[in-house]
């Protein structure tokens, strides 16, 4: 069918106008790749938000564990103020930003709008918190530490706070 015939087959002025714009090339379909990338971006933002929250939670858990350690953890306690002073606030800002982007992408381009935003947020944060606590106990999430948090809170009295001196609070 020729382009002209297509336009003529439209029964109303609105349909004719739309088909004319499509046939003239003024209006084009966005490629499938665009939508695949959008989906990938949504997943990426969600995973990134989860990881940043987990990272923060692992640090907070680390601090809590130092304060509540049964062992003296002298070195770790001594470095606590330094640790707090070096707290990565940028990660907090990044986490909030990523969560906002992830939620927006999920709601506009996915079908997460079928669930309440509060529930989606709760699930994201709760799973990240669990992961973060797990990371803290496994000794992951403190860059350059090279050892677990366990090492900082369970160190021998001969080597107090060795683990706490290392890592993210450098």
């Amino acid at each position: 069918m020729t382009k002209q015939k297509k336009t003529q087959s439209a029964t109303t002025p609105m349909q004719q106008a739309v088909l004319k714009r499509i046939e003239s090339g003024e209006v084009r379909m966005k490629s499938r790749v665009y939508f695949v990338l959008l989906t990938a971006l949504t997943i990426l933002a969600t995973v990134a938000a989860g990881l940043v929250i987990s990272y923060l939670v692992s640090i907070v858990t680390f601090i809590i564990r130092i304060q509540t350690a049964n062992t003296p953890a002298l070195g770790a306690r001594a470095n606590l103020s330094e640790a707090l002073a070096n707290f990565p606030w940028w990660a907090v800002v990044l986490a909030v930003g990523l969560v906002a982007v992830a939620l927006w992408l999920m709601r506009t381009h996915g079908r997460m709008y079928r669930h309440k935003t509060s529930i989606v947020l709760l699930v994201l944060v709760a799973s990240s918190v669990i992961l973060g606590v797990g990371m803290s106990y496994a000794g992951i999430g403190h860059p350059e530490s090279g050892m677990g948090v366990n090492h900082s809170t369970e160190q021998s009295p001969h080597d107090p706070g060795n683990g706490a001196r290392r890592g993210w609070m450098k």
Partner: protein
Amino acid sequence: MRKITELSDEEIIALVRGDDVDAYGEIMARYESKLTRYVVYLIHDAMVANDVVQETFIKTYKNVQGFNPKYKFSSWIYRIAHNEAMNAIKMDKHITHDLDVEEVREAAYETTTIRDIDRSILKNDMQACLDSIDLKYREVLMLQYYEHMKYDEIADVLHVPPATVGVWAARGKSKLRVLCEKKGVHL
């Protein structure tokens, strides 16, 4: 081979994705009057509604590759129309209760549609009451009673959870009753 008029929306969209512009004409033919009456109800301006519907068809075509064929096409296109209507309202391109609106209403609603509507909110006088309630409640009731959508489909149009649609529908009906009674319309 089946005629294009016998195909479902989703089947036609598959053709459109394969660059069949003619098939898109069929989609527009199916949805032009439905979307027009829907948008007219939202923005109360027949002229602007035409622009909104045209823009809806343009956006639908542009984003057709992003449509997931597992879901209903009608909910998707109504969602785009909803967004365009909300943009028009934000841009303050409205809102006059002109005569065209009444004409569109008269033309758009088939008697069979009316027959199906819940008896308690069936009366024509209810139109005035419906126009007086909040947009979100009005929209839910319109989609439910005039477009015959289920809560799930309305949720897809409004991008809210189906439970919220249920709440809005109940509140909308309740407000409608109160308003109608104030205006002397007994439901």
